[in-house]
């Protein structure tokens, strides 16, 4: 499973939860948004192998982009 993912992709996927506009997506990611994001990424790239520590790093959009970039490399 490989792919490239950037900040606009992450924000766009988060925005699909609750019918938000990208500019309404805050930097911090709560646990429900994280579940949503993981599912959106898995639908696009296949199942992710992300451990609990990495999930904990995904509490911000910046952290999520970092982790997903590593995982999808």
């Amino acid at each position, binding site marked *: 499973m490989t792919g490239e993912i950037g900040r606009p992709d992450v924000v766009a996927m988060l925005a699909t939860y609750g019918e938000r506009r990208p500019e309404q997506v805050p930097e911090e990611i709560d646990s429900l948004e994280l*579940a949503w994001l993981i*599912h959106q990424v898995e639908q696009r790239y296949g199942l992710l192998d992300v451990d609990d520590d990495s999930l904990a790093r995904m509490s911000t959009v910046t952290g999520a982009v970092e982790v997903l970039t590593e995982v999808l490399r």
Partner: protein
Amino acid sequence: MTGSPPQLEPGWVDEVLLAGAADDVCLQLGVPVSRADLRRLVAGRGQVLAEAGLRRGGTVALCLAPSLAFIANLLAAWRIGAQASLLDYRLTPYEVDAALRRLLPQVVVTAEQQNAGGPLRGYAEITERVRTCPGGQPAATSHAVIQLSSGSTGPSKVIARHAASLVDEVTRYTQIDGVPRQGERIVSLASMVHVLGLVGGLLYSLHAGVTLMIPDRMTADGILAAVAAGTQPTTLLGVPFHIELLASVTSPPGLPMLTGMTTGGELVRADVHAAFRDRYNVRLGNMYGMTEVGVIATDLFGEYRPAVMPAPGFTIREQDGELHIALPASPYLGVQDPERWSDGWLHTKDAGCVDPATGLVRVLGRRDSQVSVGGLKVDLTEVEHMLAGLPEVASAVVVHDHAIEAYLVLADGACQSAVEREITTRLAAYKRPRRLHVVDQLPRTATGKLVRDHAALKGEHRS
């Protein structure tokens, strides 16, 4: 529901919850837990709590994430005949200290390590730390469980329920068509430290002989894997977010054991409801309830949507556009607020109407400042009072539009980062504003009152 609830002997835990065949698997949090296992575990925790000084009529505060430890300690405390206060494990140490100063429990149970397991774990594996508090007070009332609602700065926000009220609710569930029966399974996505997951999930399952399973991971994949892991007829129990999450799965696996999903809280959008029904072809139901009384009305087959039918034994009326529920005694401790309970009626603060012909109830949203964040109730005034009380803040308004946002005027010389640090210290993550807007001034009415209209605030922010 007339008259005061009868006082139950502590034996209600064994009779109503723990009775049943020894080898019956009643819980599955990772490993299956039989009734014999659970009885042993509860007896063991009872011994530890008793050694810490907990007695009948005593008080204990539990600050534990959803876990086998939470279940065992809660049942053990009730089995002793003690009053248990449930503190949300997501509270900051600052908030926990404030709650403990207010509640003065004799014993406090926390985890050696909080947040164990990562943000998407369905349950934690916890080693408890049991602490005896020298200044702790025995229970002032005969209630079995105490919960603090958000906005607990006010006197009437400590919610208390008797054991009889919990047993009433469990019994009520048995009378509602569409609720899982003995031999079936609930996969619960609702936190067991709040009323839906606690009574509708945990206590009902134990009473009815339904296996309660918590997914290892609360991702779409993890939830569907948990459903697929059993053969018994299975009901999903969650909040509206979970419908939206599962409805977004484009090709779910075949799940012949899945018979339905029930959620508490606000209705999901019609397109999400339809997408879920299309994906899974099962019953999708909704429940209306409150921490104060538990489940109030249901529509478990989606046949009354957007209305709900009062649960057996409940009388609901509409009073000046607000839903009131017949309740003989106030569920609040401390100084009473007649705006919340008066003359045998609980004022829900929910706008709504009751159809006189059918009895069906429509819930039309909150009339106060309470919002729901992923199923967790947050009172915006609590957040606003906290912000306005900071020395770094001159004035503040907190609103909700998809997420909690705060508009602030900083005090002279103060900086935003200092405010952010205080917020992190003083507020649990789910209560924190997701955005801080620092403005030169806040819009006010002609009489000088702060305006809480989001459009006006945004206009001020842009100007």
